[in-house]
């Protein structure tokens, strides 16, 4: 069992078969995380690099742990302590690590399309760990995994994505993945943070959060990047919280057994109220655990699935 391509760049181009395979594989690998000895030999001898041009806590750590739990050797490059600060280009950095024998490069980068660019340069597998405003496929998959585990299905569910849709790679990956799997996706946020033509991606867009949340099975709240305020996209976090913040009162419009999700890190009291973030419907910490399982599944399906373990 392997994925159709050598890279995982986005969910727009991923088949439902591959998505299904990743979700099912994650299901069977998740149990490893709760073992007392969290180590299987599956990826022994494989070398995986995380190359992060942006700060990250959970994505980078969970990729690293995913590799380690399956015995891959993992290496991290934080761009602030590497030759990137000396002006090295992405091509040169990538080629340098490839010739050291990397089997896979997991990259986060502030510019959309950078992982496509990297994948053209490298023979090694490339996993997109978030590129600019484009996609964050492993986040999309772990969100789908979380919903599927809790609800038993994706098809037919109503998922509301609330917040800064414009700049969100999480929103785009969720939209592609969920709509392909048959969910109904609606998005909501201030009109300055909803990109043009978003409805051509197969979603309905609202500027009233209430309309999106109404009848939702899942409410996925996006992080508001506070620097957007300086660009004039919204006037203040106070007004944002009042009009667009997800709180108990608005969530009362959702189905009674709704799930509340957030990819983190949260701005408590801005896009999401603390009491609901820590409340009984919240899956926020569970998403983090599931993130490790999804990343294990992808590593396995790209690096391990077809290799003959007995060859050596």
């Amino acid at each position: 069992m392997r994925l159709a391509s050598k890279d995982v760049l986005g969910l727009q181009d991923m088949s439902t078969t591959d998505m299904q395979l990743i979700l099912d594989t994650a299901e069977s690998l998740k149990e490893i995380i709760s073992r007392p000895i969290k180590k299987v030999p599956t990826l022994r001898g494989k070398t995986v690099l995380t190359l992060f041009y942006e700060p990250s806590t959970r994505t980078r750590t969970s990729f690293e742990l995913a590799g380690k739990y399956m015995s891959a050797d993992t290496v991290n490059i934080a761009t602030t302590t590497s030759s990137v600060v000396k002006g090295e280009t992405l091509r040169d950095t990538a080629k340098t690590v490839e010739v050291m024998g990397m089997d896979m490069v997991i990259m986060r980068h502030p510019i959309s399309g950078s992982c496509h660019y990297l994948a053209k340069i490298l023979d090694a597998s490339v996993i997109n760990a978030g590129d600019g405003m484009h996609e964050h496929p492993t986040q999309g998959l772990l969100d789908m995994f979380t919903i599927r585990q809790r609800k038993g299905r994706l098809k037919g569910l109503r998922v509301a994505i609330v917040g800064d849709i414009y700049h969100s790679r999480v929103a785009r990956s969720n939209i592609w993945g969920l709509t392909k799997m048959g969910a109904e996706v609606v998005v909501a946020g201030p009109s300055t943070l909803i990109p043009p033509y978003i409805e051509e991606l197969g979603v309905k867009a609202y500027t009233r959060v209430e309309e999106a949340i109404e009848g939702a099975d899942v409410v996925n709240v996006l992080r508001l990047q506070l620097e957007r305020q300086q660009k004039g996209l919204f006037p203040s976090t106070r007004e944002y919280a009042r009009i667009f913040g997800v709180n108990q009162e608005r969530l009362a419009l959702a189905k009674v057994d709704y799930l509340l999700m957030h990819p983190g890190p949260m701005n408590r009291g801005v896009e999401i109220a603390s009491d609901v973030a820590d409340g009984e419907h919240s899956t926020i910490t569970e998403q983090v655990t599931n993130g490790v399982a999804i990343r294990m599944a992808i590593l396995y399906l790209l690096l391990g699935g077809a290799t003959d373990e007995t060859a050596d």
Partner: protein
Amino acid sequence: MKLLIKGGRVIDPANKVDAVQDVLVKDGKIAAVGKDLGSEAAEKAKVINAKGKLVVPGLIDMHTHLREPGFEYKEDIASGTRAAACGGYTSVVAMANTKPVIDTASEVTFVRERAATTGIANVFPVGAVTKGQKGEELAEIGDMAAAGAVAVSDDGHPVQNGEVMRCALEYAKMFKVPVISHCEDRPLAGDGVINLGRVSTVLGLRGMPAAAEEAMVARDILLAELTGGHVHLTHISTARSVDLIRWAKGRARENGFTVTCDCTPHHLTLTEDAVEKYLYDTNTKVNPPLRTIADVEALRRGLVDGTIDAIATDHAPHHLDDKDVEYNYAAFGIVGLETAVGLIFSELVAKKLITAALAVEKLTAGPAGVLGLPKGTLQPGADADVTVIDPAAKWTVDSATFASRARNTPFGGWELTGRAVLTVVGGKVVAEDGKPS
């Protein structure tokens, strides 16, 4: 030195000629154009059989970046004029955004002298509108015009301040040089890298709204009317820009001002979809950005109804390193001199969207008329700048074979029909079959 180009279809829009004729070139000038020029004409002449081909005035590109001085690693006058010649162009109009900026008479003279010694096509320099193209104080437009600048433009650094633009149009009018305007409201375009639209949303790239161009088109039209000046709106790319210019042209004559415009081959043939289809290929990154199919169709209509005066390449050569980076970091620009004829004949003429005669007009008499150049004509006595186009020649775009120093084209691998097969500058053959002679 005599050259007799026999039996081709001569299309000379400036003189309203479209017939199978011979063209005789002698001592660097057009000596005669007529049917079956006899044996006397052929005597001691190099005879070129042009049967089945188009014989047209040498093409003029009114928007070229030759990059010299300052950016010779991207292109220089020698390589840029070779690219021009290979593409069928005998004259190029060189933009002023070099290093230093062409903002004084001595810089204009430098370009002309370099062109005379290293170039193989005619080079007409453009001077800056403002000192250093900073958009603040007017450059010495009078001196530059006297030194041979044929227009003024801050091109890629468009004048944002309306009052500065007003003064520029007023002032340039005295010297009969147009102000060429790259229409872009900079804050509105922001840090956009492609058109604001469906593709920018899907790819997560920052978008430049069409309105960033159109707002400046509207401003420049109104300032041309206010001043009675001549504004030339270059590389227009949106349907509403065409509409605004059509409206302006309808009232320009009776109100004593002049508005002209051009558009590029890439805006006539590609849409924003190319950025998605070619997976963030930085060779699709260009300013103004590739727009939508509705915009492309409006530009084509604008050519046919006369709203658009010229096709100009905006040949923008860049080094491989300038493009071999992440999309946002890549330089804006597409090279155009060596693909223009092929694209126009394959995508427009062969598909019967425009006639061959109209294409030739937009590449010759059109730009010559905008800039008042004594070019773009086969009138006897004129400089013998002649291009022979084989409209049936099939070829595949391979940037590795370009005479330009640059390779930044999104058209690599395109199979085109139509190519300049002979380029004559001042009576001298400078390129044949896409290669410098």
